[in-house]
């Protein structure tokens, strides 16, 4: 589960749903379902949660179909990896309740090329367009739907594309036959397509104070069970999760979130970064604009300078991203390691003492001098 600040994005989605008055949650889980089930348990904020397993990841329509037996009647459907607010949920639910027609939230974005764009005419969806060129469209599909009970039949009737069932394919067929309402929303809407998006997501969450830990002073939130040395410096906005330890003269923040059970050693500096659960940052390390996964160990004197930098994902280069590094789950740096800004270090990678990482390190790779 990807973090928004120091809580999973999915938890913020649940918050929005609960705050909008939703009384039953059904989650379709596939990848790492144990983690999701273990995190939320049978209820979230007194709302019962039912888990449904999608054994093969065959598209969003297929995912929704798995929930059929757990759902009775119409449904609100959302993506679990987009940060949204309760207003968006309520707007879709209200319009759907008024009309009974399938309803979808749309949001204005400059860069439509990353998303599914929509053409709206008179409060109705005229067309869905996957990843168009920037500038051709103004609105994108926010991924929040109000759908009638017969959506499940409609999905089953949709022909599979290369074995997959996308919910948007079904919606296109519905648009051809009947009305699909659109609701334009302007609340919080942040998605995490690329790992460095988590830095933006965290900034957004902290700026809006969507944090469960008690606030110690303006923009500084520290869990009761965290142990922060009195000579550590916390620069808000910053959140320190449960069971964290922060050593003397460490400097944490601004725009930084420490997940559960994170350890930051003496004299370490962590700024504009998201550090996920069980990660250890040893004394004297400096991390700027960095995302770490869970259970990452960074030995003494690990240095990640700030972006902007070019980031390579597959064959695509993303220029001038504000990213120090993404260091994935369980990667280990033994100490005195330098990471060039824009690097992506894969899960379980091993970085030996004194190495300099330039660019990407693949999963499980060992980097030695």
């Amino acid at each position, binding site marked *: 589960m990807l973090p928004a600040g120091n809580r999973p994005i999915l938890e913020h989605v649940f918050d929005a749903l609960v705050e909008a008055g939703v009384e039953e949650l059904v989650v379709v*889980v596939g990848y*790492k*379902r*144990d*983690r*999701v*089930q*273990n995190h*939320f*348990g*049978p*209820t979230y904020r007194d709302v019962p*949660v*039912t*888990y449904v*397993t999608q054994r093969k990841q065959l598209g969003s329509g297929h995912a929704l179909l798995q929930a059929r037996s757990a759902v009775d009647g119409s449904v609100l459907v959302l993506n679990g990896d987009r940060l949204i607010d309760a207003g968006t949920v309520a707007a879709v639910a209200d319009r759907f309740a008024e009309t009974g027609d399938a309803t979808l939230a749309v949001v204005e974005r400059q860069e439509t090329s990353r998303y599914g764009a929509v053409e709206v005419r008179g409060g109705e969806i005229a067309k869905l367009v996957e990843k168009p060129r920037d500038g051709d469209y103004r609105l994108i599909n926010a991924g929040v739907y109000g759908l009638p009970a017969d959506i499940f039949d409609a999905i089953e009737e949709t022909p599979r594309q290369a074995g997959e069932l996308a919910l948007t394919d079904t919606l296109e067929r519905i648009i051809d036959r009947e009305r699909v309402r659109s609701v334009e929303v302007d609340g919080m809407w942040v998605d995490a397509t690329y790992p460095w998006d988590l830095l933006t997501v965290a900034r957004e969450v902290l700026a809006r104070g969507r944090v469960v830990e008690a606030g110690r002073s303006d923009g500084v939130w520290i869990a009761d*069970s965290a*142990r922060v*040395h009195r000579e550590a410096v916390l620069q808000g906005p910053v959140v320190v999760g*449960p*069971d964290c*330890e922060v*050593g*003397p003269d460490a400097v944490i923040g601004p725009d930084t979130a420490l997940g*559960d*059970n994170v*350890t930051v050693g*003496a004299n370490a500096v962590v700024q504009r970064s998201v550090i996920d*659960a*069980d*990660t*250890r940052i040893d004394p004297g390390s400096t991390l700027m604009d960095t995302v770490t996964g*869970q*259970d990452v160990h960074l030995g003494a004197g690990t240095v990640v300078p700030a972006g902007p930098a070019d980031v390579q994902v597959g064959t695509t280069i993303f220029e001038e991203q504000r990213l120090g590094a993404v260091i994935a789950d*369980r990667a280990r740096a033994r100490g005195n390691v330098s990471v060039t800004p824009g690097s992506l270090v894969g899960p379980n990678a091993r970085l030996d003492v004194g190495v300099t990482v330039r660019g990407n390190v693949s999963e499980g790779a060992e980097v030695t001098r």
Partner: protein
Amino acid sequence: MCGIIGCVGRGSETLETLVHGLSKLEYRGYDSAGVAMADDTVSLCKTSGKIAELRSALDSASLSGSVGIGHTRWSTHGPPTDGNAHPHQDCHGDVAVVHNGIIENYQSLRDELVAAGHTFTSDTDTEVVPHLVETALESGADPEAAVREAVSRLEGSYAIAVVVAGADAIFAARNDSPLVLGLDDGATYLASDVPAFRDFTDRVVYLADGEFARLDSSGWVVTDLEGAAVEKDVDTVDWDPEETGKSGYDHYMLKEIHEQPRALRQCLRERVDEMAGTVDLDDLGDLSPTGVQFVACGTSYHAALYGAQLFREAGIPAQAFLASEYATSVPPIGDALVIGVTQSGETADTLSALRAAEKRGARTMVVTNTVGSTAARESDHAFYIRAGPEIGVAASKTFSSQLAALNLLTLGMAGSDDTREVINALRELPGDLQRILDESRAEEIAELYQDAGAYFFIGRGLQFPVALEGALKMKEITYKHAEGFAAGELKHGPLALVTSETPVFAVVVGDDEKARKTVGNVKEVEARNAPVVAITDGQTDVGRYADHVLEIPETHPRAATVLANAHLQLVAYHTAAKLGRNIDKPRNLAKSVTVE
């Protein structure tokens, strides 16, 4: 083992409240269940089998009343039949009784009652109670006095709840068997454990031995056996009722295995200071024992074996005893601290052992998961493992938390040469354990060896208790033959059992003398063509002699024990799942064994 529930003040919801409470207690015992309701008359319904069978029996029964009691039973006296299910009644059907524990003088009471003309309908010890109440009522006593008189005749262990026609109240008493009241606005509950009513209230009153309670529409009052009022503290429980749901897992046991990283963080919370390298043991004070004797049963005994080694490593003589043996043949204690390890805090054998020690003037402590439990209240000191409720009968997360808690205890009381390294390893344990949960290949091993005739487990030093625990888990939930041995002991007999049909699980961590010698034992096994599964951090070459390797991250050997055990939990779980066993409620077993 058995579970009791009682409820007054819920009007027409009384019956549903009772059945709901029983379903929350089902983990304590499950071969029969029943409920009784009372107003001017007493009506009841009971059946052998699980709560689901009681529900269907209730569909065709008509029960009415303003107060009610219920029970799930796990047999000690008499087979699980409808007749032996609780509640039990007197000759006229005016009294109904539910009971946990064992009434030791029931035979003589029964003989006396039969001679006086009473007719018994069951094989249970419990049935003497309603007949004793009936006798007292006939001699003119009011209902409360009649129940008191009956209770005064009982010897042994009991938690009892009684309803009497026309009394509009529940009367309850306890001796050596847990009983707790739940206080709600306008309603009062009574149960052998908090989850029974935790969905309705978090305010509780724990009854002590020799106390008597009356619950009626005006509230509750606790008295001693002579009738003098007892001032009781009202506690608030912070357990979340939702933790008692399965949340998408197939079994509670798997859910609880996955809860271990969080449970460990809770155990360590605010007790370790990594920067300072110190451990703070709440308010245990300075105990500085010169010797330690552990008493425990089952999984907790394996934790105790581990704890004893930690104390010995710190230079303090320590031994672990099976509580049932200790209680009846108490060794010389000297000025040793006697530490009971019990998840529930209600394990009768462990309570007896602690009481035997206390009687000889020893200082006692309990390491337990249950605040307010009998062991916690009776011992001089209590140290909580904070694992949260565990529903699966086979212990999983509570074992890991016991090991973590015993590390804290030894570091806090005796220190260690490498305190900082241990604290470091403990802080890393949740992340390391999560890695095993995410990456373990245990299911493949289970798939390959689910049909094996027997399973053997070997380990040395701190990994010996893991071998025992790995075998116990396998026995408990797969019903297959499994044994754990000290690695060096294998060649002194058990090796004769090893064949190509018996997989051997070897726990090998580090590369010290213990690890190298265990590798030697693995070679002995390999030479007999037994399939070998090594659970190892890869520091030795044991992988060369093993057919399969279950990896654990390199860490302190004390933490490695917890990690190796997690693999073995998963092997047992997946084997049992493939064999279709009743994993959360294995046959013949109960979660908390409250009889000796």
